[in-house]
């Protein structure tokens, strides 16, 4: 009976944490305001998402409309710029601001959803492999090893050569190649966590594996996941640009920041605005996502709680 009592007290402890976490919805904005970087990150991400959702109404021009009379106009504040094109025009006379606004959509979609796909697969496989070990670990890790051994860009390259590169295809392909990163890191963490006293204690009192994984392991890997995945959103936006560079990214008329960077790179020396503004868009967005991710990590990670 002693065992039961222990289980109950453990469950109580867990409930306590859960309760204190969700005691009030107001806790979140309060916590957010406590962190400056978190606030900045949240604001940036909020604006970017807002722009992505309302892109059609926000864009001052039709981003696909080319105007051969207005090719390569510099930004409005420079000589030769006009107020009609705030950030200038590209080599086909298209408004860069409008293209950045529309490009937000594609870049965010690809960035976020491919991370979601990769994260779900990776965490699941990582936990299973790390926790159970033995044959399951062996089989799963052999698959991981095989995937790891194939450079993801090569995998993606070949798949994109078979299927026409659309946003959906890109999300799925990037997701399916990047999950190994999560799986390996998660497994590494799980290997370490499962040797800790609280997991051993739970096990010794016969708590079901599923519950241990959900209640003890999962919360402990969340911080790693968030750290990697925030950077991953960034990496994916960059990866999309790299694929464009190799000729396999999202193709026009679809607009993405990576595509703008790639097409504009030839004008770096002569018409810098073609590359610089999408570059700033990427940097600021990535910065925002990472600040937000860091803050979330501080808040969610049980190990860092109460540290401040």
């Amino acid at each position, binding site marked *: 009976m002693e065992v039961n009592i222990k289980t109950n007290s453990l469950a109580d402890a867990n409930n306590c944490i859960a309760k204190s976490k969700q005691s009030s919805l107001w806790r979140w904005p309060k916590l957010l305001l406590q962190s400056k970087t978190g606030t900045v990150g949240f604001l940036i991400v909020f604006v970017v998402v807002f722009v992505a959702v309302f892109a059609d109404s926000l864009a001052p021009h039709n981003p696909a409309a080319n105007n051969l009379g207005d090719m390569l106009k510099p930004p409005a504040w420079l000589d030769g710029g006009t107020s009609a094109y705030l950030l200038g025009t590209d080599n086909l006379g298209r408004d860069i601001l409008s293209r950045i606004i529309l490009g937000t959509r594609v870049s965010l979609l690809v960035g976020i959803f491919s991370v979601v796909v990769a994260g779900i697969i990776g965490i699941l496989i990582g936990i299973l492999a790390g926790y159970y070990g033995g044959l399951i670990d062996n089989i799963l890790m052999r698959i991981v090893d095989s995937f790891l051994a194939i450079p993801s860009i090569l995998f993606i390259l070949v798949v994109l050569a078979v299927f*026409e590169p659309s946003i959906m295809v890109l999300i799925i392909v990037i997701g399916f190649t990047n999950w190994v990163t999560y799986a390996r890191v998660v497994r590494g963490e799980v290997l370490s966590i499962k040797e800790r006293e609280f997991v051993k204690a739970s096990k010794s009192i016969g708590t079901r594996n599923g519950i241990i994984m959900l209640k003890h392991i999962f919360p402990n890997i969340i911080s790693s996941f968030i750290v990697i995945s925030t950077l991953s959103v960034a990496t994916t936006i960059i990866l999309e640009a790299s694929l464009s560079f190799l000729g396999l990214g999202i193709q026009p008329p679809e607009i993405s920041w990576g595509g703008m960077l790639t097409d504009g790179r030839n004008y770096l020396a*002569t018409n810098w605005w073609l590359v610089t503004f999408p570059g700033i868009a990427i940097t600021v967005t990535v910065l925002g996502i990472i600040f937000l991710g860091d803050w979330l990590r501080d808040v969610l990670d049980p190990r860092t709680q109460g540290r401040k």
Partner: protein
Amino acid sequence: MRSPYKLFFVAYLMVMLLVSGCSNQSSTRENEKGTKGETGKDKTTLVLAQSADITTMDPQNSLSTTGDRVFRNMFNRLFYRDANMEVQPELVEAYENVDDVTWKFKLKQGVTFHNGDPLTAEDVKFSLERVMNDQTLKEYPYFTQLAKIKVIDDLTLEIITDGPMPTLLRLLAKSGADVIPKKYFEEVGLKEFQKKPIGSGPYQFVEWKRDDRVVLEAYPDYFDGAPKWKEVIVRAIPESSTRVGELLTGGVDIATDIPPNEWDRVNGDEGVSLVTGDTTRIMLLVVRTTEGSVTADPKVREAIDLAINEKAIVDSVLKGTGVPVRSRVPEGVIGSNPDLYDAYVYDVEKAKKLLAEAGFKDGLEITLTAPKGRYPLDGEVAQLIASMLGEAGIKVNLKLLESSAFLDIYNSNSNEELLMIGLADGLLDASYSLVHYTKERATGQTDYYNEKVEKLYHDAGRNLNEEERIKQYQEIQAIIAEERPHITLFQQGSNYGVSDRVEFKPRLDEVINFSDISVK
């Protein structure tokens, strides 16, 4: 926000802007250069930068302009093309057309391979038979009209064709007709030959570092006199801005394939200049005339042609390199039709009217497949065409594909209404280009068929009367320009960045003879 954060943020954006702005400003500033390369009489090394590496040292299995530029200087052919694209004897002393199908050639004396072996009729027979018979060679498809090679004596041979062949001499001046040393090749085999290729040309092989450089040196015993350069380095630099960078810093003397966006950099710089030329490559739209597709209606095809302003495309995005054309056979190629060169039709109102007549008053939707990154600014051109067609009420579903995926579509005949491609003429003869309008070739792709075109083409192919043959080809082009299984856009230009240290003139066939380049 605490002030350091704000400061940081502002600094951040400033740096980004500055970095880009700086590079812009300072690149137009005059640079000190020319220090790296040798100049004047001391200059004995020529450095050339191409956009792609050669893939083989087998001249009969290459079929690329980049490869031809190397092989042309390492190997000899029976004939060559001079700067005006006239066919001239190279290894041949004298020749004679014995009858409709038999040609007799007498070779020059004293020609030697780089290993010292003399070049004989046996070597010519061996080389031509190799490319005639080995189906895995890329040049094979062009040499199928050759039937037999007969060696008469050491320096005399006969070529027998499978029928009258007006284009034989042109073929013998084409890539793939290179003469390789029989004895050496049979001794060492293809694998070793690739490691140390031997030809009879003005420059001999030193080394080939893949995706980096090919190094050649002068062959002092060249039959036509000692070559001009002591050493020639052909570098592969795929990224155009890097290529231009090497040119501006004096790392290379000539850089090929300079896209229009880099012109200001090249022209704005002292010590280098842009040299433009023509190519035989015509950008065109392959139109599906298959029963059931909307472009089966000639009115729709005409409307598409009328809606596209080829001149505007050439003048804007391509900055004037290129000539609008209405035929696939450009000026300079035998059999071209001067009426259709430097010509285009553009009339949006008429296009709309034709569409209405064809029953598409409310517009129609078509698919345009185009490559991106295969030809200079191809993606941009395709996007322009899409929006021009949009103005005439044709909604274009634009599919831009990377080069390989694009070729898959093209070669598997899965092209939809329109497909944009650039087609060159390796033989510089209309027969090469116009084969696309024969039933055999068009089936599955354009599905175009015209009995008259068919007859004209086959008659011309066996016609040894040059004047008549040209007329036949010109007539085909006039018909095609009206019926439009291809809607031709423009003749592509070639652009080279050239250091002021050397004198260089581009050729229509895009070949570079190193010895034609001289020190200034």
